[in-house]
């Protein structure tokens, strides 16, 4: 026999261990990501020093050994791969993500300078996506065949819309034709509306699809019948009881949503010519600025991993069944 206090103490112990375990495995995945990025760079066809010199000077030609030697020394390309790898990891531990070939500035500095426009875009889009998904689910799920089918049709189409096309459509209609919103270059709240909507709509489609399934399933549960026999109104049953059951699985999708937001931000920033990390990443990819791209990709992977870790941890808190299972 254990007392209640002992039991809760033990539960807390497993929970702490669980959180620690998740954190450690997140760090391992992050290290594996850095390793993968490093070795992808090593696999690059052709000579890295030549590529670098050609990029900086803007001409394409074969370089002499005398030209290449100082570059090889500066970037350590002449060292054995293992030495280069350890040096790379060492730099990462000091927060040094490398130096851009083109801009000749540290990647960390470039990212920090562009952080806010991207983060504000992602946060606004996440908020809009949740509001849209909740609205569609509450309004149409389990309300007769016609309304349900309409709702699920809207979700399927929304989820399938590529952001590059949706963005241009919204830009043409609401900015160029109706002139409700500025076209581009406006970093204030008005300039944020269309990009955030573009980013949010496909994600809202996915979230709503998942919520609708859970919502319909929960509607046939005994506790709904109980709530109804207690005389609660339909709206109270839906918003108060059923919704809670359908939100939880969607929360677990938030980690995925952050990944979708990161991918989408790259495209949305290009469509609306908004400054931000995505825009820098695309420009760097076009000019083949390998250190800058690698640095940004690593930061994006880290963001994704941390978001998934946070979702895991939040889930452990919300749903006590997980700790015991």
């Amino acid at each position, binding site marked *: 026999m254990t007392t209640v206090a002992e039991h809760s103490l033990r539960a807390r112990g497993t929970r702490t261990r669980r959180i620690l375990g998740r954190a450690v495995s997140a760090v*391992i995945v992050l290290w*594996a990501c850095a390793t993968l990025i490093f070795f*992808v760079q090593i696999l690059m066809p052709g000579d890295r020093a030549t590529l670098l010199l050609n990029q900086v000077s803007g001409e394409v030609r074969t370089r002499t050994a005398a030209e290449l030697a100082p570059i090889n020394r500066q970037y350590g390309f002449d060292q054995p791969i293992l030495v280069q790898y350890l040096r790379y990891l060492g730099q990462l531990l000091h927060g040094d993500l490398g130096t851009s070939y083109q801009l000749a500035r540290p990647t960390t500095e470039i990212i920090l300078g562009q952080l806010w426009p991207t983060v504000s875009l992602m946060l606004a889009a996440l908020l809009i996506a949740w509001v849209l998904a909740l609205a569609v689910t509450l309004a149409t799920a389990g309300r007769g065949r016609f309304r349900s089918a309409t709702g699920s049709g809207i979700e399927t189409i929304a989820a399938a819309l*590529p952001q590059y096309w949706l963005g*241009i*459509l919204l830009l*043409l209609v609401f900015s160029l034709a109706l002139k409700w919103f500025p076209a581009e270059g406006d970093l204030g709240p008005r300039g944020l509306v269309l990009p955030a909507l573009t980013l949010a709509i496909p994600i809202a489609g996915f979230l709503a699809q998942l919520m609708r399934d859970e919502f319909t399933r929960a509607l046939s549960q005994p506790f709904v019948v109980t709530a109804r026999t207690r005389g609660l109104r339909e709206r109270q049953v839906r918003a108060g009881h059923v919704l809670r059951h359908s939100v939880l699985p969607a929360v677990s999708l938030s980690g995925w949503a952050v990944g979708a937001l990161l991918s989408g931000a*790259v*495209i949305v920033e290009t469509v609306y010519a908004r400054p931000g990390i995505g825009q820098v990443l695309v420009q*760097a990819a076009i000019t083949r600025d390998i250190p800058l791209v690698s640095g940004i990709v690593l930061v994006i992977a880290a963001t994704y991993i941390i978001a998934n870790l946070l979702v895991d941890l939040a889930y452990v808190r919300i749903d006590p069944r997980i700790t015991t299972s």
Partner: protein
Amino acid sequence: MTAAANTLPARTIRIPAPTVLAAVVVVLFVIAAIFPSLLAPYDAFHVDLGETLRPPSFAHPFGTDQSGRDVLSRVVSGAGASLLIGLGATAVAAALAVVLGVAAGLGGRLLGGGVNRLIETLFAFPVLVLALLLITVFGPGVSTLVIAVGVANAPGYARIVRGQVLSVRRSEYVEAAHATGHSPARVLLRHILPNALRPLVVAGSLGIGQAIVWASGLAFLGLGVAPPSAEWGALLNDGRTYVTVAWWVEVLPGAVIVLVALALTALGRAMQRRFGKESG
């Protein structure tokens, strides 16, 4: 109602209207890909400088582009390249997924665990971002595009294969095959793989549309196939410059991509429902 219709067996499958519509779109897409001249009203590369940037009309349903080329004909002639890119990328993803999934499912602690970690690591990169990294390192071009989209999509398929291999290897018929003295290689090829691959085929058919969308997205960003090609992503990237003066050069090809992707997904879903739940 004719007599013939009345004598049809009662178990005739009723195919829902959206699925029929999706099938029609996919069939048109495949015809456009194989026999573009059947559907294209004009020569897709015919430049007519007197007819530049004309809005949609009866003569040019999708309008004309900055060189006076018929946009509809360009969309039709780009279908083949886009279908090949979608198929190629999905094939790359599936092939990688089989290797990774089987190694993760059958390998021991060391190999299996290591491959598992690799799959989880690849999962930490959003698809577009991983593809961007690969294109940067290996330089732009069709083959890089196909490989980049394929590799970026591989971890999702690899998880499916791994799960399937893990459940099949413990099944009674695999145990029976081992017990009757078949070699491990034969058991793998004849018993485990065929059963592990079925859900992969369904997932792959769902993925072709997505792969086309990813590849067009990368081309839209300027990281795809070089301009003279009429591949769909290249059309989008081309049209971007003129979108503010001629919406049709961008919006209509984009609409076709969305329609085809939706149709492929709807058809994939219908297959999934038809061929059992295990792939869910």
